[in-house]
């Protein structure tokens, strides 16, 4: 493998990857942050998305890079959640949660409530209200049905209403 050399095509692919990175990295990082609540994990997810998507990015027109990368980031995040499930179960025996990043700097009450939602419910709200995606596209990104998106979103909204209502009392 060491003897292989990069070809001109590969260098062009590298340029496209760099362009995609410059254009989309920050937004991907922020999307990952909103669903995970963890800045450092978010940067891992954003960078890994580019690594995984590099070949596809060479083929896709530039206007499709954003949606494609967004899907890759969400897939990576879902994989991370799945992999931690066993540890989460273990942790839940004692009540704590690997995916609840408390953050001493936390002052935004609604953000704090969003972080406490189950991962998929939080993702539905982030994609709907931050990415402005229709339910059909959210379902495609999350790999579930439109009905699931609607029900998960409704449950999340109900929880937020309840929590906010209780806190106002």
């Amino acid at each position, binding site marked *: 493998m060491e003897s292989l050399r990069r070809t001109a095509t*590969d260098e062009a692919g590298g340029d496209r990857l760099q362009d995609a990175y410059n254009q989309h990295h920050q937004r991907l990082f922020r999307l990952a942050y*909103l669903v995970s609540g963890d800045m450092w994990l978010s*940067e891992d997810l954003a960078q890994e998305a580019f*690594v995984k998507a590099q*070949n596809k990015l060479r083929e896709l027109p530039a206007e499709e890079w954003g949606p494609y990368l967004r899907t890759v980031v969400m897939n990576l995040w879902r994989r991370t959640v799945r992999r931690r499930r066993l540890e989460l179960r273990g942790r839940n*025996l004692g009540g704590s949660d690997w995916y609840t990043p408390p953050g001493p700097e936390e002052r935004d009450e609604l*953000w704090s409530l969003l972080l406490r939602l189950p991962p998929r419910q939080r993702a539905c709200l982030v994609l709907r209200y931050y990415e402005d995606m229709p339910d059909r596209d959210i379902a495609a990104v999350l790999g579930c049905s439109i009905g699931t998106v609607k029900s998960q979103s409704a449950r999340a909204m109900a929880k*937020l209403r309840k929590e906010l209502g209780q806190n106002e009392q």
Partner: protein
Amino acid sequence: MSNDLERLIRESLRRRAESVWPPEPGARRAGSWRWERPGRRIAAAIVALGLAAGGFALVLVALGPNKVPTATNQPATRDASVVRAEVGATIPTQGEAVSVSSGPLGVWLAIPERDPAAPCSGAIERIDPATNTVTDTFDIDGTPTAIMDDADLVWVAAQSCVAGELPSLLALAPSDGHVIASVKLPVTNGVAFDLDESEGTIWMAIADVNTDRGAVLGIDEATREVVHNFPVDGRLRDISVTQSGIWVIDDMFQRTALIHLDEANGSSARLFDGRVDVRSRFALAGAPAGVWVSLGTEGASLVDQDGTTVTGPYVVPGGFGPFAADEAGVWFWGLDMTSNEQVIGWLDAPTGDVRVGVPLPDAPTAAAVDANSVWVALSGGGVSRVDFETRAVGDDGAEP
């Protein structure tokens, strides 16, 4: 109310998103975690374009499943250049296995949950290598998280289903799965993800999942008593016992490390602080010359028995998760950057060449190697058998 809430959510998300920026180059998180310079992996990925498009694809084309029959009577040889492999049909199981052991009694799987709705529905399953089918399923009182068989018994680390109760190491009879011995492990809420054996002692790294305080324990196989208890803090995971001592992976989020313990007194040293990659679940493989440790996109390195000399890193585009090794090289999990498929690969240590990369139908969760096959448990359930020629590696690489 609804519109107000939607507006508040939009504002909160926008405000929060705009308040965060990717970490600056050279930024460091508190503790020993080291931030990798942003863009570094991108640069590596750009370089990997050529390597991946050429090297791995060539390997897959040359040695891929379509071209490589395995059933031959050729004698085993140490020449890695003749390694051939193919992946068979997925063997159905009753759940996702988190630990696999292959030995003289068959291929054993630890399945924490057969029914996701029933938290305490764990089981042990045995695959008969002759028929590639599950022949035995044994219920376990608790959640099995690690398994290892020896010549007579099957050893299972099991988490208690009751909060606050101690986990156990169970010795099962392979014939009917009845519990011959149960050893309480002195770590409350402890989980052990890996087992190893050395000179009559079963070794495990176990940690309290709530406090991340744990220990490396040694249990005497004959007396079934805890004879070693070395306190070690961290989210302990893989373990491998070699001639120079005990090697453990600390999976603490973003503060991973390879820990070396002296078997005599438990004194420990941390290596590769913040650099060990545990995302693939394969991060450690013992070998006669030392241990292989995964450094993610940096590749994998071979640390010698003294812990003083590091060979490598050997870079494989897409990642490198070692899980079994001998003096000639190492079996690893990887990602084929061309096809985006998860693969099982073999790296020939003397040359650094990847000699085989076999695509898997799904992400692996655990793997074990015997004289003829690599057995890979898959995410979501099922086991893939990767048949190969010429390679002979002991389970976990600890006893080559």
